[in-house]
């Protein structure tokens, strides 16, 4: 009894292992093809999406190419897809549009030169605000010495406490 019980699972596991070792490479191979095909296409699509979201739609008011349903935006999307599929890098595609339209076509200005002000100024402003806050708070802290003369009439305080206690009842 015991021997039988012990042997059966071993047999089964051996069988599955043999079947598995023969099948795995094939499965992996097929899976690789199935997965890789749409992957390469979708990565181009992702790049198209990324680039179009950074480019201004020339015929719109403050819209990116990605957000615009206009014909011009469609044509730009097609052109970007075509250039990427031809092996051009996303940077080269963007550079092409800058070359033709100027930096205006980029929704976010390049982080260089005068443009850096846009990134730096908010933080400078925050810093200045924080410093002003520190100075003001320090000044307030220094002032209480003048208010130390403020005394409370013990009788008055007593009455407030009494009335509070009455209220709670």
């Amino acid at each position: 009894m015991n021997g039988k019980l012990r042997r059966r699972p071993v047999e089964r596991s051996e069988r599955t292992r043999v079947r598995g070792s023969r099948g795995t490479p094939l499965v992996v191979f097929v899976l690789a093809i199935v997965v890789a095909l749409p992957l390469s296409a979708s990565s181009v699509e992702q790049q198209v999406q990324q680039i179009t979201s950074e480019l201004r739609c020339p015929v719109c008011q403050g819209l990116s190419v990605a957000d615009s349903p206009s014909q011009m935006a469609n044509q730009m999307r097609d052109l970007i897809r075509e250039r990427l599929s031809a092996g051009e890098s996303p940077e080269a595609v963007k550079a092409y549009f800058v070359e033709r339209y100027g930096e205006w076509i980029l929704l976010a200005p390049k982080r260089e030169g005068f443009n850096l002000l846009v990134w730096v100024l908010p933080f400078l402003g925050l810093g200045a605000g924080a410093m002003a806050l520190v100075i003001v708070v320090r000044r307030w802290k220094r002032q209480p010495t003048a208010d130390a003369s403020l005394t409370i009439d013990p009788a008055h305080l007593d009455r407030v406490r009494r009335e509070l206690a009455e209220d709670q009842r």
Partner: protein
Amino acid sequence: MTLTWKKLLVPLSVLPVLFLLAYGFRTDPRQVPSPLIEKEAPPFALTLFDGEHLSLEKLRGKVVVVNFWASWCVPACYEEAPVLEAAWRAYRDSDVVIVGVNVQDTEEAAREFMRRFEFSFPNGPDPRGKISIDYGVYGIPETFILDKEGRIAYKHIGAVTAETLSEHINRLLGEAPRMEDRRKGHERKT
């Protein structure tokens, strides 16, 4: 000391904002400077509405006016269409070619437009928008005037006028020593 600081603080914060606004409101957001000025014009080939083929490269040595238009572009394209046709008739015997590029349009509407204004200069569609994107076109109409070496000498946004066209064409024709003959010669001297 603190008083002078406080007095300075208001103008210090307000003035830059005012300057920024003054600068921003004075610039026309539709007038985007083209980076293509003085650069070589992007080459293109057109299949014209009459079935002929036109290649920009073959027009080297001529002053070329490239006009981007559409039948739905009202009223600017309708204003400039007679001007373009008149310029073509006036200059076609000189070394000047006017090329119309029809963008984002239907063939039927484009042909109707051309019939209406009796276009006789070469016109062709840009069905995939490649030429207009190559030229950095963002509004219609836009007109590019190319010198004889194929560089973009001038870009006009909006309806082009007869004065602007003739001014630039004459200037570019005058640059070439070969065009000193006939009427252009004494026209320029006046």
